[in-house]
């Protein structure tokens, strides 16, 4: 007996979009809401000026209420508004890291997979070294060297992130390169760079794309960790990890200052993971 057949689901357009995996749809919707919140933050935040350097000392550390859903922080800024603006920082970092490390990893991986031989060996051993090097420590060292900032976080994480895509792409590209149509192209005298670009690359991308969406959550977590350690964004940038860091000594008395930014990290990473899981389940079926 294999898996019991699922009842035929109605083919609504939304379902067809992501196959039938409801997890992928749920993750996509959740992530969509977060992206919208980030894009619209200046318009939907109740106190948009609190996303910046505004301070209201008279209203510091107010508990959650109708006027301030998530309460206010040490200098009287609305935590809800700052959490909304924080989504911009986190998503920007995630997109930048995934784009940079994905691009570097895919290029190196395709070259390694298609070329094989010593080229592949060299690239893969370098990849192994970067994989073995503890990512958080390398990011820490880089953040110390490069001065704390959002850009530093992006560079530091991207440097520790690309090897995963290089390794994945290399193994996929190697199997694509062994297929008949690649041989055919070679026999027709198509130059190697063109074969890689036109035939191997497009056919090696799908698993990497799925992996990228799975890794969004990991990037968000790592970025928040670096900021929490004081090595990323700095005041008054609204960044979730930084907000937890600045509020941690107040946790026992003013829980909302730490709880809501932490929840924001959790929910965003969760949305990426659910979407990625759903896509992977769909792909491996």
């Amino acid at each position: 007996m294999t898996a019991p057949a699922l009842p035929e689901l109605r083919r609504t357009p939304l379902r067809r979009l992501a196959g039938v995996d409801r997890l992928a749809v749920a993750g996509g919707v959740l992530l969509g809401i977060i992206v919208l919140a980030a894009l619209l933050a200046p318009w939907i935040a109740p106190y948009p000026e609190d996303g910046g350097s505004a301070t209201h000392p008279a209203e510091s550390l107010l508990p959650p209420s109708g006027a301030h859903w998530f309460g206010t922080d040490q200098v009287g800024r609305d935590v809800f508004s700052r959490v909304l603006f924080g989504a911009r920082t986190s998503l920007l970092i995630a997109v930048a890291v995934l784009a940079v490390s994905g691009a570097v990893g895919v290029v190196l991986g395709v070259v390694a997979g298609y070329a094989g031989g010593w080229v592949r060996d060299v690239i893969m051993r370098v990849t192994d070294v970067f994989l073995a090097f503890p990512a958080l420590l390398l990011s820490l060292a880089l953040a110390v060297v490069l001065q704390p900032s959002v850009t530093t976080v992006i560079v530091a994480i991207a440097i520790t992130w690309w090897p995963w895509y290089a390794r994945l792409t290399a193994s996929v590209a190697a199997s694509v390169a062994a297929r008949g149509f690649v041989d055919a192209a070679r026999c027709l005298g198509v130059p190697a760079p063109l074969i890689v670009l036109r035939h191997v690359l497009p056919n090696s991308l799908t698993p990497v794309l799925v992996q990228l969406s799975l890794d969004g959550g990991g990037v968000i977590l790592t970025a928040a960790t670096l900021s929490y350690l004081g090595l990323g964004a700095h005041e008054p940038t609204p960044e979730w990890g930084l907000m937890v860091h600045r509020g941690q000594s107040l946790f026992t008395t003013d829980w909302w200052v730490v709880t809501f930014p932490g929840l924001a990290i959790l929910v965003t990473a969760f949305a990426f993971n659910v979407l990625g899981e759903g896509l992977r389940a769909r792909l491996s079926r």
Partner: protein
Amino acid sequence: MLRYLIRRLGQAVLVVAGVIVLTFAVMRLVPGDPAVAYAGPKATAAELAEARRRFGLDDPLPVQLWNYLSDLLRGDWGTSLHTRQPVRDDLFQAFPASLELVGAALIIALAVGVPLGVAAARYKGRLPDLSVRLSSMLAVSVPVFWLALALQTVFASGLGWFPVAGEYDTSLDRTSPLHLYTNITAVDALITGNWPILTSTLWHLVLPALVIAAYPAGVVAQMTRAALIEEASRDHARLERALGFGETAVLTRFALRPALNPVLSLIALVFAYSIVNGFLVEAVFNWPGLGRYAADSIRSLDTPAIAGVTLLVAVLYVVANLAVDLLQGVVDPRVRAR
């Protein structure tokens, strides 16, 4: 098998060498002059020159790299600038506490993750499956530093059920001193029958170990579920069903053992990850392990100590990877051909 072993060992040595070079490069990049950090801010020019000569900072870089490599091979990991002790001794002192914490976390992760994975596979596609999948995704999405702060605030500072910080109640050192053998407090207390310290240590372990366990428990549950579903679709499972075994029996009595193979290699791989993840948890709970040592070293720009921690973690990762590959090579001959 022997050829596979030699090739794999050779690769591991190459990777470790690469990590050493990378560590060296990163240490050179870190701002701040180790000579100044060692001699102190009030040092005279002569003292500074002496410190520079002592650390070989005047030599050309390739010479420094070579010296660094040969020192490492002779077991000299340098002298920490902030504890003024050999880095190797410091690491030997701090590592057992981290090992204790991560070991406890991985035990929790297996104890929670495997049964949940079994339950999810048993009720695949139904409510238990969905809730296990969602909660395991939640577990891998939670920021450890935040979870550590939250549990500490609620269950230690707030409700007072667990101690706030530390490895054990150090006032017990006077009434029932601990004899050290392995340097792992819980193990030493157990083998010497030191119950007060053992219970105190276990009590202190609960919260930080739970925080570190979240990530591995999530991935173990997912992996167990996936491996079980795969195993339960094989021919042997059809035979067992034909013989009249119920679905639960097929899963737990026959499919679970082969399905645990990938789970165990996964545990080896998340081990090094959990050590680094544990650094943040150690900081929150003031656990006397590698994390605190690393934090102190980073704060004082103690390059030899940072390099030591980095190398230790990297070597752990390489060794764990190697162990997994060799084990799989023994179990599955197809791996060797790759």
